[in-house]
């Protein structure tokens, strides 16, 4: 059992078949090492969101096992949730709350007292929404909502961050800003990050290792440089297209 807890995330033959019969993922063996930033890439419908949702305890796998720092997420979801935080693909917020109230609400589910105050301050800083933070969320733009959600997730400083397309819908500047924060949190606080993305630049910039998902299976997995050498591509985009091409 000792090898299980070495990994931040470990899936064994993870399979998810939806009730409609469509396959989310099949026999997925994924391993995210503690302290790294792992990028999950793949075309639309390849199973990225499915995988992340299962890890975040939102969906139950049809088959297989998932461990987060050695904790079985199916058998012990509450314990697993204490170790991680999750940014959904579509993260909204309660329309009638102000941004500030939303931050307070989300963080009060994890912290109390001084630690809560600190976390709230941290989230306010990350969100960087200025006076808008005191306004109701119904007036926020998509990007503002995204960064608000992200700020609460980051400020909770979990051991593992699960981010489903973190910069989707953000403008160029904000995307760069978010990438830098993710990197900073990973380095300064040793937070492990598992993220999905369609942005190869982003993945190349941020991630230590990547896994390419295709139709619910992992085609290839490894450090970015290693993959480039193995497949023979100048960048991740080429690697992606070549690997995918081989399957066809």
């Amino acid at each position, binding site marked *: 059992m000792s090898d299980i807890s070495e990994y931040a995330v470990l899936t064994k033959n993870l399979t998810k078949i*939806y*009730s*409609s019969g*469509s396959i989310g993922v099949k026999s997925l063996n994924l391993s995210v090492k503690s302290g790294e930033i792992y990028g999950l890439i793949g*075309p*639309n*419908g*390849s199973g990225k969101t499915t995988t992340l*949702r299962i890890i*975040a*305890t*939102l*969906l*139950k796998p049809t088959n297989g096992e998932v461990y987060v720092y050695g904790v079985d997420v199916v058998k012990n*979801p*509450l314990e697993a*949730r*204490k170790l*991680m*935080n*999750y*940014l*959904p693909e*579509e*993260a*909204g*917020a*309660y*329309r009638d709350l102000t941004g500030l109230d*939303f931050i307070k609400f*989300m963080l009060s*589910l*994890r912290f109390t007292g001084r630690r809560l105050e600190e976390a709230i301050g941290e989230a306010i800083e990350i969100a960087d929404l200025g006076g808008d933070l005191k306004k109701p969320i119904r007036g926020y733009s998509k990007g503002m909502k995204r960064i608000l*959600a992200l700020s*609460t*997730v980051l400020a909770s400083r979990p051991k593992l961050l*699960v981010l489903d397309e973190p910069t989707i819908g953000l403008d160029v500047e904000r995307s760069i800003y978010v990438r830098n924060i993710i990197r900073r949190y990973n380095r300064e606080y040793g937070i492990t990050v598992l993220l999905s993305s369609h942005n190869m630049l982003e993945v190349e910039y941020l991630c230590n290792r990547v896994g390419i998902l295709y*139709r619910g299976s992992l085609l290839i997995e490894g450090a970015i440089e290693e993959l480039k050498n193995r497949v023979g591509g100048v960048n991740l985009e080429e690697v992606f297209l070549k690997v995918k091409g081989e399957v066809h």
Partner: protein
Amino acid sequence: MTLTPLLIREVKAFIKNPAFILSIVFIIGFYGILGRLMSTGIQTAVEQTLNMQIGVVLYDSSDFAVRVLSVANKTSGGRLQLVPSLEAGLSIYDIVVVIPSDFTIRVMELDKPINIESYIKINTISPVVSGAKTNIITVISDLIRKSISYVIAIERNIDPSLINKHVLMNTTLQVYGKIMKLEEYSTISFLMGFVPMMIAIIMGINAAYASQFTATEKVEKAFEMLLAQPIPRRNIVFAKIIGSIIASLLMGIAYFTGMFLILLSATTSTPNTIGNTTGLSVNIIEIVSGKIGFNALLVSIATIILGLIYSGALGITIGSIVSDERIAGALTAPIIFTFIGIGYALIFIGLPVNIITGVIAGITIAPLPVIALVSTMIGDFTVLTTSLLFAVLSTIVVMGIAIHIYNRDIVVLGLRISRFKLKERK
């Protein structure tokens, strides 16, 4: 016309909404069955009363009285049965009429009305049955009046229509062993119909609130983040139940305040109604405390609390399995109608109060006060205990289902009635 495509889109949106179609089918089916059950209940009630035998205690043994009775009996098709005493009569028949010893004397004296005591035994909560029985009393009173005229007319050889004696029926009811006047019974009967109905409406509205709140949270998309937080999912469910209860209570308070204000303004403009309304309300309180007992009142309050938790949990269950507000909205109507239907049904179907109906009342909650009322009057609390037990049990079960669903995929994915379309195209 730009209106046409807009209108078509609107109509299509609900026609293609499976929840809308399902709820229409459900309501038609549910009320169809309910209607059939109720009409069977009413029919049996009517048939029973149509062939009902009536006990007659004859304290006046004069020749005249015997003759009047025999005429009345013939006219009624032999439905009058002589019994030695009131007690003996009520042990066999549901209706007993007492002809007093001064019957003949009073008939002979010109301007004196004839007083006749009648007793009705009611052992049902069905207003149809009790209504039919009180009607029979009117029929009999009329029958006796006509028979008197007929006998006198034959004796004196005159036209019976010239003779018009006044017959005063004084009716006493024995409702589940409790003696009461007709007016008192009317109040109780009204309460029996009104209280479960009110509770059913409250439950329906509460369930609708809970399902709307839950569905809205999902649409706001903060839901997935919430579910990923290190809190037990049951706490989310509990918070939602309490939230919807608070909303319903606030709405209830606003409603009753509004009603009170209407009453106030109505009383200032027409002073006449003051007497009536206060008179009526005092009457209701008197009857509640005197005849029904505070037991039933306590049970009614307990029923409201249980009903709120139950309907809240039910609403959350529905709200959490639908994928958006539109579907939750479409399901709101059938939820409310179902509770109202159940509130009505038990009463109008005229089922007897026994362990089985007690269990049904417990599971559906709203009719509980009726069970409490009847149990108090009978003085036997077995059925009520069973009912309450089942009410608590089913509330726990519904809550358990809501919590269970919150731990399943369905709370995230929603129940997809139509087929999911594949996203992958590349």
